[in-house]
């Protein structure tokens, strides 16, 4: 056991941190709001800078644009990016779809797409959920009909983050309506500029356009865009979720938020002086710090296991649960700690910390819901991790 970074890892973290000092505006507080054009441009600029450094996909093989590093390096990268609330990290491409393509894609597909992800050239989005298929994903109905050299796709995807910024979508479609729900699904890649793709914004409860409904009206998708075998999409698609389910971003966001709160209560503001010495507040902040470190270690355990060649499904679910829970807990406490000022909206006069905590608390309500709700994760932990019977 060793509970510290190696010299190489620490060195990388320092270089990334220095890069971000340079790349982020001096007054940057985040979090990035990709519906704003200025934030999106910053995202693109930083992404290209990170790609130039070779940092977007370090754990990938060299021939696909990576540097054969351990999964630990990716986790350190993700942690630092999230801790700084930095934009410029296409998780859909680098963390979810890229690794899946490496495992299930053809060599032609790998060459065509992995390099562009590594170079930060295209933005991906994920087409899984549908209006009537949430936690019960295998009930999805968007259909892809075999039309000779292409599929014709018709249906709707929903809660699609960044569809309005994406170049490509990897999506699950029903290719065999007659077999069992899990058996008739395939995973395909779709160009978002294809005729028949209609992107309809959905504004979330924080007032941000972060996700969308995407309507597919007889969209032609070349057959070469099928990933893995026909009707094997459930297995391919679930692999994506295993890559997706790390809580490291949430653990790092939580740490950044806690530090902001500690700084806030420690500042010599006459209005708040009374609370920095309050024993209950002190203990609560210490408890949150403890919970964050516990979540962080869970996430690094996942990375370590991946480095050992495991697919740590139950551990990844655990890390997602604890990290999303602690992050919303920290944000909750932030709103509470700011008292009457905690419920002032961003941009309001008299707001404290620019109304960030209220906005983040509302925004990250999504954390325990997305990528498989925390209740679904607990089912996975109980059944796959602990071996409890399903029936």
């Amino acid at each position, binding site marked *: *056991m*060793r*509970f*510290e*970074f190696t010299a190489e890892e620490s060195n990388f973290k320092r270089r990334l941190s220095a890069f971000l000092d340079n790349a982020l505006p001096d007054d940057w507080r985040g979090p990035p709001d990709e519906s704003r054009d200025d934030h999106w441009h910053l995202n693109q600029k930083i992404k290209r800078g990170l790609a130039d450094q070779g940092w977007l996909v370090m754990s990938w093989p060299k021939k696909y644009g990576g540097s054969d590093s351990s999964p*630990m390096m990716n986790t350190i990268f993700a942690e630092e990016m999230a801790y700084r609330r930095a934009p410029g990290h296409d998780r859909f491409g680098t963390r979810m779809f890229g690794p899946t393509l490496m495992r299930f894609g053809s060599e032609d597909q790998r060459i065509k797409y992995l390099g562009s992800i590594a170079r930060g050239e295209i933005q991906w989005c994920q087409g899984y959920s549908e209006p009537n298929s949430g936690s019960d994903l295998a009930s999805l109905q968007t259909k892809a009909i075999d039309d000779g050299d292409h599929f014709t796709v018709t249906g709707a995807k929903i809660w699609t983050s960044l569809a309005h910024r994406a170049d490509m979508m990897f999506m699950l479609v029903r290719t065999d309506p007659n077999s069992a729900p899990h058996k008739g699904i395939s995973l395909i890649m779709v160009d978002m500029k294809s005729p028949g793709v209609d992107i309809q914004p959905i504004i979330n409860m924080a007032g941000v356009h972060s996700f969308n409904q995407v309507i597919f009206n007889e969209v032609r998708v070349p057959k070469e865009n099928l990933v893995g075998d026909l009707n094997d999409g459930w297995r391919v698609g679930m692999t994506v979720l295993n890559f997706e389910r790390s809580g490291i971003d949430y653990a790092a966001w939580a740490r950044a938020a806690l530090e902001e709160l*500690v700084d806030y*209560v*420690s500042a010599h503001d006459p209005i708040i002086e009374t609370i*920095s010495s309050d*024993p209950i*507040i*002190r*203990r*609560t*902040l*210490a*408890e949150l*710090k*403890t*919970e964050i*470190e*516990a*979540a962080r*270690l*869970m996430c*690094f*355990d996942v*990375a*370590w*296991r991946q480095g*050992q060649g495991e697919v740590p499904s*139950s*551990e990844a679910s*655990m890390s997602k*649960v*604890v990290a999303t829970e602690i992050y919303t807990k920290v944000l909750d406490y932030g709103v509470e700690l700011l008292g009457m000022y905690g419920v002032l909206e961003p941009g309001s006069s008299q707001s404290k910390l620019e109304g960030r905590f209220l906005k983040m608390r509302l925004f990250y309500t999504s954390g325990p819901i997305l990528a498989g709700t925390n*209740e679904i*994760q*607990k*089912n996975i*932990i*109980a*059944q796959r*991790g*602990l*071996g*409890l*019977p*399903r*029936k």
Partner: protein
Amino acid sequence: MDFGLTETQELIRRSAREFLKDQSDSETIRSVASGNYDALENLWKKTIELGWPGLVIPEEFGGAGFSFGDLAVLLEELGATLAPVPIVESAITSWIIERYGSESIKSEILPQISSGDILLTPSIVERNGSWDTSSTTVAATKSGSNVVITGEKRFVAFAQQATHSLTTIRMDDGELALIAIPIWKAEGIHQTPVDHASGVPVSSITFNEVVVPEANIVATGEKAVKAIQELVSAGSVARAAQLAGLGRAVLDATVSYTTNREQFGRPVGTFQAVQHHLAEMAIAAKQVSHLAHSAAWSFSREGYSYERAAQAKIAASEKISALCWTAHQCHGAIGFTWEHDLHLYTRRALAWKTDYGDAGFHKSNLADTMGL
């Protein structure tokens, strides 16, 4: 970061599991808890043969020279089996003597701990029940080359078996000090046993003008303050490691019970409400284990991280006792009986929760390190 066990640690875990499976069974634990200490002394003799009391003592003093991180692996197993032996007490006191004691006190005491001739247990808490040692009142007056000690320590684990106690005292100049006091049938020493939920012997010790050679003082002044802080921190981490093991054992037992117990024609473990309880228990056990090992790893001959020690004890104290209550809920009525072993774990978790500072104590100290 590396979450894997070293070869040494694998060996410690394997041999501990094998040994404890037969030696620390329900009958032994219940017998000790009811005040029959023959079983305890028997088990202790065997652990001495295994070299466990000297695990972290350097080889030059007859120990195994293992790290504190290695010790934590053993402690998880001792916690999982509720082994009623004073390994924590022995390990942390020898650790502090090695770190802070003079060469003469080290060569006097450490080899005898390794050989099992000395059993040293810490006595820190007094009547106010606090682990904040700034309130220490047990008084030491200098008298020639001796000190004369008067006062009372409470909640001293295994005091009835110990030959010596590593005791926090206040010198006549007002400074704190740490001293090794012979307590086995010594003049001026009076023990009052308490009936403690841990199920292991716990007593208060009254010192009535006990004469101890000045050479037994391990540290005084600022050095003593540091040594005492490290002693409490080491105890916290040790208890956290035991609690991690205890939590894992209770989780395993609950998985097994809910898999086999049938209601409505199916195992109760198929119900989502029960599965979610178990998932949360699994998360808690894993978090506490990670924090405990991270904290134990930070202890070296050069120093340690109080921040990690505090986090380990905060999480262990709160999460493992909660885990036990959830286990009771999952077991239903059977787990509410005296016959069933589950309450042995729950009692131990409650006792360990308070040892070496409870969650509130460490949260308050951790807040200091955060600049609050």
